[in-house]
């Protein structure tokens, strides 16, 4: 599973907000801290707002504030807002045209076998992302600081 730039920006910013619950933070500040294009980040933050993870704060010094539950929200909850992680995988196709390649392996069989391995990797990645809450990530950040 390779995460897109938008997804990584979402993960960085949601963790940044969750680390400062109740505080409003500006999109420009986060863009600067994580070297993300402000234009790009604005779209990401709007998506996080629509999902109920952030609320926008209007007025002078406005920005966003975290409204999620860091003990409940997992990395997967954020990732699936930006990635089609449940899209049908390459694997699982049956080798229906096996008879077309009697001397060796049929292309469809090769595709199928590679797909099975890629699907296995995806399953492990999904299980990992689904088991790590924002709170656990913030603890990891603190442990790595020590």
């Amino acid at each position, binding site marked *: 599973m390779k995460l897109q730039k938008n997804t990584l920006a979402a993960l960085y910013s949601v963790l940044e907000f969750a680390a400062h619950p109740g505080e409003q933070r500006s999109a420009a500040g986060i863009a600067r801290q994580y070297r993300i294009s402000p234009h790009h980040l604005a779209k990401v933050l709007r998506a996080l707002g629509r999902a109920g993870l952030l609320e926008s704060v209007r007025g002078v010094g406005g920005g966003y504030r975290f409204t999620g539950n860091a003990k409940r929200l997992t990395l997967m909850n954020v990732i699936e807002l930006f990635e089609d992680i449940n899209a049908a995988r390459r694997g699982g196709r049956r080798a229906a045209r096996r008879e077309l390649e009697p001397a060796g392996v049929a292309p469809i069989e090769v595709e199928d076998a590679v797909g099975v391995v890629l699907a296995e990797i995806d399953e492990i990645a999904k299980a990992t992302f689904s088991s790590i809450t924002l709170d*656990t990530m913030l603890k990891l950040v603190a442990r790595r600081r020590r």
Partner: protein
Amino acid sequence: MARSGRDPVRVRSAQPRDLGEVIAIDAGITGMRKPEYWGEILQRYGSGRRRQRFFLVAEDASRVEGFAIGEVRDWEYGMPPCGWVFAIGVRPDARLEGIGTRLLEAICQGFRRLGVTQVRTILARDNPLILSFFRSQGMMAAPFIALEKDLEP
């Protein structure tokens, strides 16, 4: 998270009298009663029978709230001695009160006393609840991959 408004919890070695409650907690979680299995576990791990094995329960004034089982294994998979946690379970209505954390801490303390510096477990990847618990305790992926296959008759 601290337990508020309820009796304090004490963690101790499991005794034969705890078995009924442990079986009930496990059945409540897994949907299956396994009295013979738990009898065997008590024989092998209970009451501090062997120094390297731990079968702990967490109890308050009225009942057993959870259990944990673990063991120090030497050179398993070619790795230096380390602590393995095989099972941990807490009554659903007593969760989010730090009981699982207390049980895991107690078992890790037992491992430390035996000179062990690492703890491991193996979990079903389709069980995010228990995966999240161990993750929240700071556990990360170990340098192993579990493999299996169907045995053809």
